[in-house]
Structures are given as C-alpha cells and as structure tokens.
C-alpha cells in the first residue's frame, strides 16, 4: 500500500518522460490523475488506520508495514551492513500522507497555465512527490536519508528553471542551506549505524526503530546511553541531537536559519511555493518527532528550554518581519516562519497538548498557507504584480476573490471554527502546561507566544485594509481593472477544498486527534522516562 503511494508519482513521471513533446497537454492530466489516485489511496489509508495503535518506538504497533531486505553487505572485520526497504506509519506520519497528496493535487491544478518546458516540470514535480512520500513513510534511516536528499534535486531545478528573476540565486541558497543541514545529518546517521545492532542478526543496522531502543546500542558505542561517551567534552548524544535538530530546523525553518525561505518563495513559481509551504516545511517538523525526539528522547529535557526559546523568537520575529513586507508573497513567507514557530513551541513543551497542537498546526498550516500562496498566485497570474501598494479597493472589482482572501486571512489568524484556532490555542496551552507538567519550558514563553497571535492579526488585517478596501485604485489603471477577473472554475476547485477542510478540521478536530493521540502519548511517555 505505502509502496504504491510512494511510487505512483514516479511511474507517472516516467510516463511523462516517454510521452512525446507534441502531446505536452497530456502531462498535466497525467500528473493530476496520479495525484488524485494517490489522494484516494491516502484517504483509504486514513480510514483504515487504527488510532489506538501507538507506533513511535514500538515496532509492533506500526501499521501498513512493508519490510524487505535492501542492502546486505559483509564488511569483514567491520561486521555486516544492513539496510532495509522498511516502510510503515504511525500517528505522526499518517496525517502527512493525506496532506501531501492533497497539496500535490492543488499544486498540479495551480500549474495549469504554465507553458515553459512542461515535460521537465511535471516530471520533476512528480519526482518530488515520490521523495516526500518516501520521507514520511521510511523507517530505515538510510532510506529516509535517500528520500530526504532526493527532495532537494527536483526542488533545486524547479526553482532554478521555472522561478522568477533571481531564481538561480534563490535556488542555490535553498540548496546550500538544506545541504548544510543534511551533511551533518549524514554524520550522525553513520554514527548511529555503528552504535546500533539488530538484536536478531547482530549486524549493524539503519533501522530507526532499533535506534529508539536503548538495548540495541553497543556497550561502548558512541551513542550508547549507558556509556555516555563524550566528544570534545560534550555528551555525544547531545551533539547528535543538536545536529539533527539543526538539520530539520533549517527546513522548518527557525530563526536565524530561515533566510532561504523568503527568497525561495518569492522566486519560486506558485505551484512550487505551494509545495514548499504546504509540505516541505512539515518535513522539518516531522523529523523532530520521528528522529530527534524518538531516537534521542533523553536529550529533550536538556534542550527543551532552547527549543522553546527559538520557537518564541521565530513566532515574534517572523510576525514582525511580515509586518514590514510590501510584497504580498514575502509577507506570506514570513508569516510561515511565525506560524511554524508555534510548532516548535508546542513540540518543546513535550506535553500531550503541545505536541498535538504542533502536529495540528502543521496540518492546518499545510492547508492554509497553500491557500494563501494560491491566492497570491491568482493575483500574480492576472497582472504580474503582487506588491501591496500597487492595489487598493480590490473588493469593489473582485468581490468573490476578496471573500476568499478574507476568509483565508481570518482562518489563518485563528478564527474559531478553522483549524488554525485549535492548533494555536493548544500549542500555547500545551506550552503553558509544561512548567507544571515537566518543567521543560517556563510560563512566560507561552505568554510571549500569544503575541504572535496578535501580530498575526495585525499584519493580515492591515494587508486586507490596504489592498482590498477603500476606493479602488490600481497601479496599472484600467488595463489592470480588466485583467483582474474573478476566479475561474478551476481556481475555485483548487481553493475551496483547502478551506473547507480547514473548516472541517476546526469543527471536528477529533478527525486528527483520534488518529494521533496514542502516538503522542507514547512519545510523551518515552520522553518522560528519561526526565
């Protein structure tokens, strides 16, 4: 099942490559069909997923597990190398499968009008889809790493070829930043590999679930919990945690490792912005839980204060930066930084509410930021401008579009009834609860985090006021007024499901929480064991 989910887009990509250029119109249909099939499969997975099974560190309660030997190499004196094709999901990964397939479908719909080198574009987009799905399902660290690195390749080209004026600069920046993180991840992975042995075969293994079990570490190995080896006077496990954290935090992103994000978003074409904000940022958050927290649960209590602090700084710093933007797309990009700060804050609390809130925030942001970028893209498609001060009084000429923008803005600033409300409220409540529960992060961080909610309202409402209300005045004059048409059917079709889903989740959060609770509690227990 998961294999299908991962490789359907790859098959579609191959199909796109083999269909001649003369039939280039077919590419988008192939991509759309692939995403829709994937979406149906993901819904099936969601429905049949048993929320009572926890997963996390317990191999037995993972679901849809597929395990095949992948690499078996005898290295002589170094022992045997063992890596598996090992897929499986628990509550932390399952929601992202659904989110990925949905966002990918929207991304395809929003690239409908694209004209440049369609073959390459759709092939790369589908390849990206495969790699993201792979990251979310892989339980073998080597496999995970391969998919993780594989994401970079298509993205680099998608930004670098189809992007805006400074696309090459943005693409390289994005590439280097992420590479920087993953190089260190590679080191830790190798270190873990040498520390952990498969209890059944005695061989060194990349199996992440084995890495989560302290009994599998060699007695004197680098990352063994018992021996607590030091590197340069610091606990090796601490260094590994921090290094992995930085690798994923670049993706999330956090302040001060976020500067690739505004550039990448501004230069990326709309569909890529959508994918970037909707899914790729979530890979960072997913990595925290799957890798950092699960493999190094004993380090969480030491680092939680710093994580929470970075989270709060990201929330406020991102929001203040958003306030200063005059480019609508950059504003949305910085608002992403702010919103993902809530993820970090909730995660740092290591309380059930905080972690659930963080997960919910990622899903909610996945829907709403996609909607936001999509709306910006609609405007840009029409007049090739997205500076805030170029527009005024859009409500009078595009009432329907204004309604869409206004609802999305309010949804993402946390209006009750929409998913962001539940997400932010519980991230904050969980963070606040932490001091009483486990003493990880102090009360004031939660209180400071609420400022992000206020500032979020400020920059969004200010934008609404400046661009949409008042008397109509456009920089492009009459020509623009004619170009600014109401949304087309295709655009409505791509947009409304996102919003309705956000609304649905806001009203029935149990759709997510029921599938998530067991895993969250299991992770919290895992961390508490070492606290």
């Amino acid at each position: 099942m998961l294999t299908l989910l991962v490789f359907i887009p790859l098959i579609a990509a191959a199909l796109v490559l083999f269909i001649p250029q003369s039939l280039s119109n077919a590419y988008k249909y192939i991509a759309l069909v692939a995403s829709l099939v994937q979406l149906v499969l993901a819904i099936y997975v969601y429905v049949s997923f048993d929320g009572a099974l926890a997963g996390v560190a317990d191999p037995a309660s993972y679901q849809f597990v597929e395990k095949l030997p992948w690499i078996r190499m005898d290295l002589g004196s170094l022992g045997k190398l063992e890596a598996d094709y090992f897929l499986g999901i628990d509550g932390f990964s399952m929601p992202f499968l659904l989110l990925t397939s949905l966002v990918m479908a929207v991304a395809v719909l929003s690239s409908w009008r694209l004209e440049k080198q369609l073959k390459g574009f759709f092939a790369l987009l589908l390849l990206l889809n495969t790699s993201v799905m792979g990251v979310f399902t892989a339980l073998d660290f080597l496999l995970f790493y391969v998919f993780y690195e594989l994401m970079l390749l298509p993205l680099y080209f998608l930004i670098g070829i189809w992007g805006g004026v400074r696309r090459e600069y943005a693409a390289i920046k994005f590439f280097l930043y992420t590479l920087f993180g993953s190089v260190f991840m590679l080191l830790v992975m190798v270190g873990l590999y040498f520390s952990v042995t498969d209890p059944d075969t005695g061989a060194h293994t990349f199996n992440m679930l084995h890495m989560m079990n302290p009994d599998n570490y060699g007695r004197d190995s680098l990352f063994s919990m018992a021996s607590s080896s030091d590197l340069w006077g610091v606990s090796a496990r601490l260094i590994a945690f921090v290094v992995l954290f930085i690798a994923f935090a670049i993706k999330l992103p956090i302040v001060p490792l976020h500067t690739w994000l505004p550039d990448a978003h501004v230069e990326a074409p709309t569909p890529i912005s959508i994918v970037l904000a909707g899914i790729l940022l979530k890979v960072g958050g997913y990595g925290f839980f799957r890798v950092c927290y699960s493999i190094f649960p004993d380090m969480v209590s030491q680092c939680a204060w710093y994580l929470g602090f970075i989270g709060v700084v990201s929330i406020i710093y991102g929001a203040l930066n958003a306030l200063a933007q005059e480019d609508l797309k950059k504003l949305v990009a910085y608002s992403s930084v702010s919103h993902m700060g809530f993820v970090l804050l909730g995660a740092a609390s290591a309380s059930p509410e905080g972690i659930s809130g963080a997960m919910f925030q990622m899903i909610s942001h996945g829907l709403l930021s996609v909607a936001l970028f999509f709306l910006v893209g609609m405007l840009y498609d029409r007049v090739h401008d997205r500076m805030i001060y170029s527009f005024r009084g859009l409500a009078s000429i595009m009432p329907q579009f204004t309604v869409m923008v206004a609802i999305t803005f309010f949804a993402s600033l946390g209006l009750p009834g929409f998913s962001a409300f539940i997400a932010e409220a519980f991230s904050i409540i969980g963070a606040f609860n932490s001091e009483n529960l486990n003493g990880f992060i102090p009360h004031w961080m939660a209180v400071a985090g609420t400022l992000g909610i206020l500032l979020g309202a400020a920059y969004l409402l200010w934008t609404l006021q400046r661009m949409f209300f008042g008397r109509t005045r456009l920089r492009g004059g009459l020509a623009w007024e004619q170009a600014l048409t109401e949304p087309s059917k295709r655009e409505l079709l791509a947009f409304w499901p996102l919003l309705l889903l956000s609304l649905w989740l806001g009203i029935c959060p149990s759709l997510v929480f029921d599938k998530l609770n067991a895993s969250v509690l299991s992770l919290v227990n895992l961390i508490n064991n070492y606290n």
Partner: protein
Amino acid sequence: MEQFITHKVMLVLALIAVIAPFLAFLTYALGGKRQKSGVVSTVAIAISLLLSLFLAISAWNRELLHVRYDWFTIGTNTVTVGILVNNLSLVMLVLVPLVALPVHIYSFSYMKGDTGLRRYWMYLSLFCFAMLGLVVADSLFLLYMCWELVGFASYLLIGFWYERDAAIKANKKAFLINRLGDLGFLIGLAILFSEFGTWDLAQLFGHDGLIAKEGGADASYLTWAGLAFFLAAMAKSAQFPLHIWLPDAMEGPTAVSSLIHAATMVAAGVFLLARVSPLFNDTVLMTIATVGSITAFVAASIALTQRDIKRVLAFSTISQLGFMMVAIGIGQIGTAIFHLVTHAFFKCLLFLCAGAVIHEIQHQKEKHKLQIDPQDIGLMGGLRKTMPSTFVLSLIGAAALAGLPLTAGYLSKDALLIFAFEWANYQAGFWVFIPLLLMIASGMTAFYIARWLFKIFYGQNRLSLSIGKAIHYHEAPVLMRWPMVLLAGCCLFFVFSYNPLVFEDTWLLNGLERTDLLQRVNIYHTVIPAAINSVSIVLIFLAWRWYAKGKYPLKGSGMLYDWSYHQYGLNRLYEKGVVKPLLFVSGALYRFDVKIIDGLVLLVANLVELSGRLAAWVDRYVLDGAVNGVGNLAQGIGMLLRNGRKGKVQRYLLGMLIVFLLMIIYANFI
C-alpha cells in the same frame, strides 16, 4: 407544567434559540446574490426571542439546565461542548433577542436601498448567533470561541461600508484591541487548564466546584487567571485605557451600533466576569473596581464635549460599562447584570433615536445637496417640533440614562451606587474614592445627556440658519418608530419592579446571586438617591439654560475643554507610543534580517568560496608541474570561477561541493 416540559425539551429549545440565527446566516451565505430581504434574519431572531421567553418563564429560579457532550480528546483530556442555562444565562438569552428584534425591524427602514443588504443581514445573523452561543456556552473554551466570533462579526459590521477609509481603519482597530483581550482570555484558559484540567463552568465554578474546593490554597495563579480574564473583559467591554476602539466603531451603520456597540457585544465582558466571578480574589476585585471607576469617570468627562451625535452615546456607553465593572468589582454580580439589562434597553433606544435623526438629516443633505456632517449636533436643534415621537422616545431614554425616578435606569443605578457606598464603608479608608468617582460620573452623565437632548431637539433649527434655507424635517417612518416604542417601554420601572423607588423589590436582582457580605446601611438607601437626583436635576437645569435657551456662558475652548474633546490625547499617544514604534521595529528587524542574518550567510559562503580558491591555488602552484592534468583541471576551475556570471552562486556551489566531499571523506575515515 414541569411534567410536560422536561429538561431535555428545554435544552433542545435553548439550542434552537441559538441555532436559528445561524441558519439565517447560512441562508444568506449560501443563498447567492438574490437573497436580499431581511425577513429570514428577522424571523430567526423572533423565533429565538419566543423560545427564550418561554424558557425564561419555565426555568426562572427553578433549575439549572446543563447538558454536555464530548467534543474531542487531546492527549488524555477530553474537551466537551454543551449548554448551561441558569438564571444568568436566561437573562442574557432573553435580552439579546429582545434588543435584537427591534433593531432588525428598524433596519428594514434604516438600511433601505443600501447595495450590500445581503451582507448586512448575513453579518447581523452571524453576530446574533455568536452572542447567543456565548451566553449559553457551558465551557470556557466554547465561550472563548463564541467570544472571538462575536469580535469577528463586529469587525465585519463596523467595516460594512468598506469603501470608507475611516470605517476600515476603525474595524481593524476594534479587532486588534479585542485580539489583545483575547490573548488574556487564552492565557486565562491555559492557567485554568494547567491547574484543573477542565474548562467546564459547572465543574469549575459550581457551588461545590473545583475553585470552591481547591482555590485559595495557592492564590497567585488565581490572581493571574483573574487578571487575564479581566484583560479580556477590558478589551471587549471597552474599559480604560483599551476603550479607544469603541468610539471609532461608530463608523458602522447606526442600527449596528445600537445592537452591538451599546447593548450586547460590549456587555459580553461584564457577562464573562459574572460567569467566572468565583475565581476572583481581593486583588483582582480591587483592580476591577478601580479600572471600572476610572473608566466611568474618564468616559463621562469626554462625553461632555463631543459634537458627534453618536460619539456622545459611545462615550456614555463606555462610562456605563465602567459602572457595571465597579459592580463586579464590589462583588455585586446581580447588580452588574441588572444595570447591564437596563442599560441595554435605554442605550439601544438612544442609538435608534440618534439613527432616526441622522437618517432624516442625511435625507435632507441629499435632497438639498449640502456639504455637511449629518452627525454633528451643532447643526441640529429644534427637532422636537418636527419629530415629536422621536423626541419623546429620546427623552425617555435620556431620563433612564440619567437615572431619574420612574425609569429602570433609576433602579439599577441607585442599587449600584448604594452598594458601592456600602462597600466603601466596609473596606474603609481611601477606597471611598470609587463611589465618589461614580457620583461625579453620574452627575456628568445627567449633564451630557441633557446637553445632547437639548442641542438636538430644543432651540432653533441651526441647519436652516446656517445655510439660510428652510429645511423641513419629517418624523421617522413607522418601521423605525415602533421598535423604539418597544424599547422605551422596557426602559420604565414596571418592567422590573412594582415599586418605582426602591430597587430591593426588583425581581431580576433577586433572581441573581448577590453577596450578603455588606452590611446594610439604612441611611444610604434614602440619602444617596435623593442626593444624586437633586444634583442631576440641578445639572439638567443648567444644561437646559445653556443649550436649550442658548445662554451658554463659556467660550468653548480652553485646556480642559480640549483635553476632553481630544479624548485625553489617548489616540495620539497610542499612535506615537505603540503603532509607530512597532512599525519602526518591524522595519528595522527586516533590514536586520536582510543585512545581518543573510549577510552572515553570504559571508560564510564567501569564506567557503575563498577556501575553494585556495585549493585551486595550491593545486596550481604547489602541485603544478607534478601532474599536468591536475594543473589543467585546476586552471579550468579557476577560469570557471573567474568567468562566473554576475551571480557568484556557482562559485559557492563549487566551494560547498569541495567542502562536502572533504567531509564525506572525513566521515568515512573516522
């Protein structure tokens, strides 16, 4: 009757009362552009009114209706939703539709011909739904959701005329200040959650609830929680210094102002405090009382000089909300709610009267193509002859606001002031400033509302005089008049008590919780009403001489006048002290982001590039000659580097690649 009407039926009825406006909202939201008539909204609110009246009659003083269901489970905690109906919610449940229905009917005539009617009815119904949901919510979390929705609906309605700059600035301001309060609410929720693990009102605040059992042991978190909820109430109920959004909110249609920014939404803060009142300890109560009294005084002093017909009323609302806050602060929840109810009626009435006047002047303005502000009371005058019904209705409203005998306002205001004095007596010492501030505010109230009334309805028709052309006003249309008559009826004493002079016979007050902590000081119960009313009558007379007879002795300027007229300069202070610095900081941070953080990143990249060049240099000059091929390769790389296009990115990439390779080599050899 109880046999037939079970608990369950009553709860269903309450639910229908809440949902009806929501269904109306959906009808407009999904009904497309053709759905313009306000009938759906009006019918919905009428249904709400009938059901809640029925509920009030059958459940008043009898039983607590409570039902709840699991909503979702997060971790191990289950969040519930449900309905909780007790006397407090019954009062509000009746009050909201009772005020809203006349406003709906009034709107038919007032908003006639507006192009955005569909939006208008949609927003209005959404507001009613949120407000009704707020009063029956059984958990603080649900209450919080409705609380925010109320703020959202208010945002939409203030900015209803979205082409007006003032309107859209006002609604942004209103929403942001309310948001600030929401943060307080959220923090309060977080505190309660981390202490008690539940938000259920009955479990927390019931007679044998968690607060009663466990509260007080560790008082500091209770203080913080209390203050957090008070912050929420301060924003929503426009308490000093967060009141500045309310006067600006008058940019919305007047019918909206009357419902939302006078009678219901702004009262939500008072209602919230009444709901969570067991939470408050002395520190919090004293804070509430102090802020309330300052608000009552400050707002009344600003209302003295305002020239806009609606702004006078807006500041009056703020001042009266301050009175209610004091009542909460002195522990008289019942009195606070009683004053909330009477205030809702008379203030709604006054706003509708103002609306009738504005409507008529607007009409004349369009007819004669005048360049005037239809809300300036300086241009009115003499309207009592041409709009006699509106005049009489305004008179009733004004009398109730001033607290003159025979009105409902008299009962609630006297109760409030007497309790305040008794409380000060009990507290002793300098706390007497609270009732004294209220006394002064009450005197100013009589004066400013008399000024308002006399300037509009007495004297000469100043508009005719100023343009030198006869202007003939007409009485408000019947659809606007009758709703006002209904409200005026509710402003009189017999609605609340058979005894026009003594508040202690009021049924509403006796149905709500009251503290018996205070010792009854008999003398207060006669002296205070007598004193206040004498002062009021003297001041009203003074206003009559000044404004009705035109014997105004002052020059209408001077420091105190300006101070009051410019609202103590608070708006400027916020603009200069908060908004400007915030924008400056955000701009500076953005420059920091681009120059420093991104600059550092580029610096690192440059260093990497440098090491790449170094490697190339070593290659060329150290290893050159030894291996020709390597040398050529290095030269090739050097060429590549030198000839790289304007972007240096390729060079970074290359440098990075080299470092990367080195690392992999390193990694494989440890």
